[in-house]
């Protein structure tokens, strides 16, 4: 064996060890998380529910561990086989690839870890959010809070999935736990201040805004792309120039206008000032420029009216880009915190949207991390799921502006 091939084998073993740790860690955490969520959801409310979930967790512990060991073993066998079977000459390349994967995986862990932590903390029972996972028996032995704190300092900080999960945080932010239900009889308005209401408000505001913006933008883009109009080019350049104005500029005057219109604290105020999207017109116009004029002429010869040409020819052909604009507008209204904060009337729960509700909530329950995190889930999880299904539209849409520069 030449020294070169020894060095290569040693390097392979090191990379292999890192890979085993990574695969075992990730698969173990993901499986455990799945079991934890199921245990929490299926168990009831309160302390007994938590104990029930904890017993489910401890019963399935061995099963979870063996499952992730099996996955790790399978992946390891696959990689070793590939390495052993590969040609001597490509082995350095093989190692380089392996290293690349590990670096990228470490990056993914770093970027997504905060969200995973949030998803875990949302399931932790009150008062235990900051404790890292420990075996259940040990936890009960330590009733002194100082001791508990000391113990948690020595727990593995990476092991963040709760051993005794609970679904109570979600019940409390939705105000469907037994305590809020009895309070709700006394104060129905206060009881409406829950994340179910906020979520529906945000959904309504964002969807309406996205629908109207795409509609208006599509009509305007059609004119700029296909219709004759005096000074069309100059108007378009003027529109683009206004994109340079920082958004902060509009906060004060738009707020005054909304107040003078008597819309303060209504859902209208949340999206009305954002209906003219220059970016949307720009994006759609760029796309419509690629639709051949002959298609429009053919439709006109067939006797289609102006409106029919727009509806039957232009819209169907522009569907991908329209969908992109819809999603982006939805997103920007979904997380438009500053504007929604200043036009919200906090006495009226029907006008509170998710980001504002979260800010309000955070002020009320400063130390209850589990509650804050489960409230955050309402904002993040739907968008993340949407992204998974429509990522192509999101990524292409958001990076459009740069490519055209």
């Amino acid at each position: 064996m030449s020294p070169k091939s020894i060095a290569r084998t040693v390097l392979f073993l090191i990379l292999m060890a890192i890979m085993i740790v990574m695969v075992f860690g990730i698969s173990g955490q993901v499986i455990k998380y799945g079991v934890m969520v199921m245990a929490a959801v299926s168990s009831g409310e309160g302390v007994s529910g938590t104990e029930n979930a904890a017993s489910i967790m401890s019963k399935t512990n061995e099963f979870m561990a063996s499952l992730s060991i099996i996955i790790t073993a399978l992946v390891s066998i696959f990689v070793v086989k590939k390495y052993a079977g590969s040609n001597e000459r490509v082995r350095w390349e093989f190692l380089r690839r392996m290293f690349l994967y590990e670096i990228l995986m470490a990056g993914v862990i770093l970027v997504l870890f905060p969200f995973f932590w949030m998803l875990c903390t949302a399931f932790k029972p009150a008062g235990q959010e900051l404790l890292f996972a420990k075996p259940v028996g040990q936890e009960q032995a330590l009733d002194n809070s100082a001791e508990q704190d000391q113990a948690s300092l020595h727990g593995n900080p990476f092991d963040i999935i709760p051993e005794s999960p609970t679904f109570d945080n979600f019940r409390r932010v939705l105000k469907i736990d037994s305590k809020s239900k009895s309070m709700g009889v006394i104060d129905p308005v206060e009881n409406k201040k829950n994340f179910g209401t906020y979520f529906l408000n945000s959904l309504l505001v964002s969807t309406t805004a996205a629908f109207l913006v795409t509609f208006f933008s599509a009509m305007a883009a059609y004119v700029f792309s296909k219709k004759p109009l005096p000074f069309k080019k100059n108007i378009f350049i003027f529109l683009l120039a206004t994109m340079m104005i920082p958004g902060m500029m509009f906060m004060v005057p738009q707020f005054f206008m909304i107040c003078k219109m008597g819309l303060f604290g209504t859902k209208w105020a949340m999206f009305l000032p954002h209906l003219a999207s220059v970016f949307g017109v720009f994006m759609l116009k760029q796309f419509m420029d690629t639709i051949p004029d002959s298609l429009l002429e053919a439709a006109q010869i067939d006797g289609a009216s102006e409106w029919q040409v727009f509806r039957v020819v232009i819209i169907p052909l522009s569907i991908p880009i329209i969908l992109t604009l819809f999603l982006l507008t939805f997103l920007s209204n979904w997380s438009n915190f500053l504007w929604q904060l200043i036009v919200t009337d906090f006495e009226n729960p029907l006008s509170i949207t998710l980001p504002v509700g979260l800010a309000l909530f955070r002020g009320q329950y400063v130390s209850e991390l589990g509650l804050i995190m489960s409230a955050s889930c309402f904002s993040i999880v739907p968008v993340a799921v949407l992204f998974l299904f429509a990522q192509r539209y999101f990524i292409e849409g958001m990076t459009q502006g740069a490519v055209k520069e």
Partner: protein
Amino acid sequence: MAIKTTKDTSVALGFLSPFMLFFGVFLIFPIFYSFYLSFFGTTTDYSLANLNFVGLDNYRTILKDIQFWWSLFVTFMYAAISIPLGITVSMALALLLDNKLFGKSFFRSAFFLPNVLDMLVVGVIWTLIYAPEHGIVARLWSWAGGGGEHFFNAPGILGHPSTALLAVIIAMTLKGAGFGMVLLLAALQNIPGDVYEAADIDGANEWQKFWLITLPLLRPIIGFMVITGLIGSLNAFTEIYAMTAGGPQLALGDETVGSTSVAGYYLFKQFNAGNYGYAAAISYMLLIITLVITGVQQKIAGKKNNDGGKRK
């Protein structure tokens, strides 16, 4: 023919009118309205009717307002650190992904995902990660043998003026890096392979290829990232609101200033205190600064284009 043109124009105006209505009312009119409002003063009871005319006082106050100029300085620092850091991280990710890899789209999506998530929530999560005593960073340090009394516990990362801004920037870089990565990756894949082959023949090493070929070809994208980074810094608000609320405080001569109080946050604070006229005046100052920046950028971009023309 003339009749048809008028008809076409009226149809065009019809299609354009809904957009133009909202554009005029909510984007053009406010620019003038804001200017008008900037001559008015404060209301203490938040009622808009009681604003009193103060003339040019707001602009006079701004010139002497240390807090305002400090907030501009913080904004500048925010941009000066976050833009190079963001470009470096995005570039590293893009170069790593610019290989033939199985599961490339998985990595691309995973890095891009934080971009679409709500800024406020991301800020809240990071505040808790940085929190003294119980935050992940403090815990890790204690766990790794740092004992009980260390920097991450006592003032905390967000509690010390010298680290707070940096901590916000790191959180935002991890959130936003995937965006630049996708832009740079697309540009990298558009570079034709024969350029590198030619360099190979000339005997260039990897480092030289990166500095002399890749980087110059990516200049338009990097320029775009700098501009969006500058505008982003001028508009920065939510991350500061969620993570530091402008603090921790710092003594600057006779005044105490917030060490992370960026211009956007200072504007919001004035607005929230009922100083509507003053807030409008500040936003006018920000507009002027933005115009100067874009003017300079246009000049640089124009100059570069001319150079390119000459070389051809």
